[in-house]
C-alpha cells in the first residue's frame, strides 16, 4: 500500500536529516518551501511543528545561489554591473549604486551632480516599487488578495517611469561607474511629477483598506519580536532595525552622494514586532516621495552635463586597493566591498546583503509561535531570495 512508507526514500534530504537530530516526540518535520507560496521564491524553511506551534525553524538557503561573487571575480569591472540588477530584483538600483560607488571610491571618480541627483531620484522611485512589491506580497501572505493588485497598479506606473531611462522593467542595470547609462528626459520628469500627487492620494486608501484593518492589526501586532539586542546579534538593518526603535539609516548615518542635502525623516517604531516593521515601511514611502520632490527641484540647477561619455570603459583597471561602499536599500544596509589587484577583473567582490542578516534572525523570532505567525514574521522581514543566496 505504501511504497515510500518507512523506506529509505522517506528519510528526507540532508538538511532534514540534520534537523531531525533534536526532534521531539509527537512533532512533525515539515518543509516549507522551496516551492511554497509564502516563501517568495525559493527559500526553504524546515520547521518542526507541534500541532500549530512551530517548535523549531531553520531556513535552508542556497536554492537560488547564482554565484554573483564568483562572477565578480571573472567578469570585467564594468561587466559585473548587470549582475547588480539581479542580486535584488526588488531594489536593484541600490545594489547598482553600492557597486558603482565602491568602484568610484577605488578609482577616485567624482560623479557629476546631475547624475547624483538622478541616481537619488531613481533609487528612491525604485524604493517605492520595492516597498509596494513587499506590501502587496505581505498582505497576500496574510490572506488578502486585493491589495496586491492595487499596489501593482501603482507599481506599474512607477515601472513605466523607470523604463524610460533604463529600458528595462525590473532588473535595472543602468548605473555606470562615474554616472548613469542614460539621461532622463523631460517626459520622465513630468511623469514623476504627476505620479507623486497621485500616490499621495493612494496612500490614505492603503491605510484605510489595510493598515487600519482590525484583522490585519491583530495578526501582526506583538509577533516576531526582533528587538535591538537581537538586531545587534544578527546584524539586522533597515526597516527591521528601525522597527525596533533605532533611527539608523545609512542615508543619514553615513551620508553618501547628495543625501545630506535633503530634508527627510527616518520613521521608527518602538514595538519591534511585525507591525512595527510594517508601519516603518509604509511611512518610508512618504519620505521617499519627499526626497524625490526635493531632488527634482534641485535638478535644473545641477551642474554637470551628460553622464555616460566620461564613464570609463567596462574593461577599466582601477588602482590596487580595497574599497567599501554602502547604501540604504529597501531592505537595509547594502554594502559592497571590492578588492582590486589592478587588473581588468576585480580580485574579490563581497556583497553584504541585508536580507541575509535579517533572515538569520527569523529562526529565533519564530520559535514557539504559531505557523501562521511564522508566515507573518517571514513576510515582515521583506525577503528577496536572490539577494540572500547571492
Amino acid at each position, binding site marked *: 500500500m505504501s*511504497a*515510500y512508507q518507512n523506506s529509505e526514500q522517506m528519510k528526507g534530504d540532508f538538511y532534514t536529516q540534520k534537523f531531525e537530530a533534536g526532534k521531539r516526540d509527537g512533532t512533525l518535520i515539515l518543509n516549507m518551501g522551496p516551492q511554497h507560496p*509564502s516563501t517568495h521564491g525559493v527559500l526553504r524553511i524546515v520547521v518542526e511543528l507541534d500541532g*500549530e506551534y512551530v517548535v523549531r525553524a531553520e531556513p535552508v538557503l542556497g536554492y537560488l545561489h547564482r554565484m554573483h561573487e564568483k562572477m565578480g571575480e571573472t567578469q570585467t569591472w564594468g561587466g559585473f554591473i548587470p549582475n547588480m540588477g539581479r542580486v535584488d530584483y526588488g531594489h536593484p538600483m541600490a545594489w547598482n549604486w553600492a557597486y558603482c560607488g565602491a568602484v568610484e571610491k577605488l578609482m577616485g571618480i567624482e560623479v557629476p551632480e546631475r547624475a547624483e541627483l538622478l541616481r537619488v531620484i531613481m533609487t528612491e522611485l525604485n524604493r517605492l516599487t520595492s516597498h509596494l512589491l513587499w506590501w502587496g506580497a505581505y498582505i497576500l501572505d496574510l*490572506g*488578502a488578495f486585493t491589495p496586491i493588485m*492595487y499596489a501593482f497598479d501603482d507599481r506599474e506606473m512607477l515601472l513605466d517611469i523607470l523604463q524610460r531611462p533604463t529600458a528595462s522593467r525590473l532588473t535595472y542595470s543602468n548605473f555606470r561607474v562615474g554616472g548613469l547609462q542614460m539621461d532622463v528626459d523631460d517626459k520622465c520628469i513630468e511623469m514623476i511629477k504627476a505620479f507623486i500627487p497621485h500616490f499621495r492620494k493612494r496612500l490614505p486608501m492603503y491605510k484605510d483598506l489595510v493598515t487600519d484593518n482590525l484583522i490585519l492589526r491583530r*495578526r501582526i501586532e506583538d509577533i516576531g519580536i526582533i528587538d535591538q539586542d537581537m538586531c545587534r546579534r544578527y546584524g539586522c538593518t533597515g526597516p527591521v532595525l528601525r522597527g525596533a526603535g533605532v533611527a539608523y539609516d545609512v542615508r543619514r548615518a553615513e551620508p553618501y552622494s547628495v543625501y545630506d542635502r535633503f530634508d527627510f525623516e527616518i520613521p521608527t517604531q518602538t514595538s519591534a514586532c511585525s507591525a512595527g516593521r510594517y508601519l516603518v515601511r509604509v511611512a518610508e514611502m512618504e519620505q521617499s516621495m519627499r526626497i524625490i520632490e526635493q531632488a527634482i527641484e534641485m535638478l535644473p540647477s545641477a551642474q554637470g552635463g551628460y553622464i555616460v561619455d566620461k564613464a570609463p570603459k567596462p574593461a577599466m583597471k582601477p588602482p590596487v586597493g580595497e574599497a567599501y561602499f554602502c547604501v540604504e536599500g529597501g531592505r537595509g544596509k547594502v554594502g559592497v566591498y571590492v578588492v582590486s589587484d589592478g587588473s581588468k577583473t576585480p580580485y574579490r567582490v563581497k556583497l553584504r546583503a541585508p536580507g541575509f542578516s535579517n533572515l538569520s534572525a527569523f529562526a529565533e523570532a519564530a520559535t514557539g509561535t*504559531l505557523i501562521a505567525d511564522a*508566515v507573518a514574521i517571514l513576510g515582515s522581514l521583506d525577503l528577496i531570495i536572490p539577494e540572500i543566496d547571492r
Partner: protein
Amino acid sequence: MSAFVQQLLVLIVAAVAAMIWLGINALVWVYCERKFAGHIQRRPGPFEVGPHGALQPLIDGLKLMGKQLLTPDNADAILYWLAPILSMLPVLLLFLPIPYGPVLTGMDVNLGLLLILAFSSFNGLAVLLAGWSSNNKWGLLGAARAVSQTVAYEIPLLLVVLAVTFMTGTLSLTEITNMQAGHIGNWFIWKQPLAFLIFLVAMFGETNRAPFDLAEAESELTAGFHTEYSSMGFGLFFMAEYGYMVVMCSVCSVLFLGGYHGPFPGVDGWWWMLLKTFALLSFMVWVRWTYPRVRFDQLLNINWKWLLPLATFNLLATALILKL
C-alpha cells in the same frame, strides 16, 4: 396509486432539479466570484473564453475532468477516494427541504432544519478523511484546522437557529418562511438582528470562506486538505464547497430574510429567494476579496469569546421575551 406516482415523480424531478441547480450554481458562482474579484481589483477577470468569459467555469470543469486522477503512493487509497465522494454525497440532499417558492420545494420536511444540520456534518468528516488519507502533512494540518473550525462554528450556529425556532416552534423551513409572510417588517431579521449577525459570521466559519479560510490558507498550508487531490477529486471538493455555501445562504435567507416572500404583500415568488440568496453569496464574495485572513487561535477565540456568549445571551433573551 396516482398519488404515489405523483409523489414519486415530484421527488425524482426534485432530485434532478437539485442536481441541475447545484451544477448551475457551482458554474455561476465560480464565474461570478472570479468576475467580482476581477472588478474589485480593476481587471476584467475571465474574459476571452466565451462572451465575457462566461464559458470559463464550464471549460475549467471539463478540463478538470480531462486531468489525471492521481492517488499518491502511500495514501490509503480507499479512504482517499471515499473522501471527495462523501463530501459531495449529501450536498444534494441539503436542497431537499429548502423552499425556493411556494411550490418550488423539494419536500416540506417538518424536521427540515435538523436534516440540513445533520447531513452537513458529513462534510467535516470528509475533510478529515481527505487530509488524513492523502498522507500529506499539509493535508493533515489543513484537515485538522478545517474540522476544528467547522465544528467550533457549529455551536453558535445551532444557538442562533435555536433562537429562531424558539420563536417559531417548528423546524420546518416552509413554515418558518410562511411566518414571515406579509411585508418586510415581518422578517425575522428585525426580531433577531443579533442572531442574524452571528449567523453571518458563523456561516463564513462553517463554509471555510475568507476571512476564515484557514483550511486552505494558501500562504500557510499550500492547498490545505486537498493538497494531494488532482482532477475531479479537487473538483468535487470545490463543488461541494460552493454547494454548502449556497445552502447556507439559502437557509439564512429563509430564517432571517423571509425566504420567498417579498418586501411587500402580494409579490412573493421564487425570485425573491433567489435574490436574497445571491445577495448573501455576493456579500460572501465581497468579503473574501477584501479582508486578510485571521489567525487560527483568533478564529477559535472569536467563536468562544464572542459568538458563543452572544448567541447564548441571545437565546436566553429570546426565551425570556417570549414568556413576557
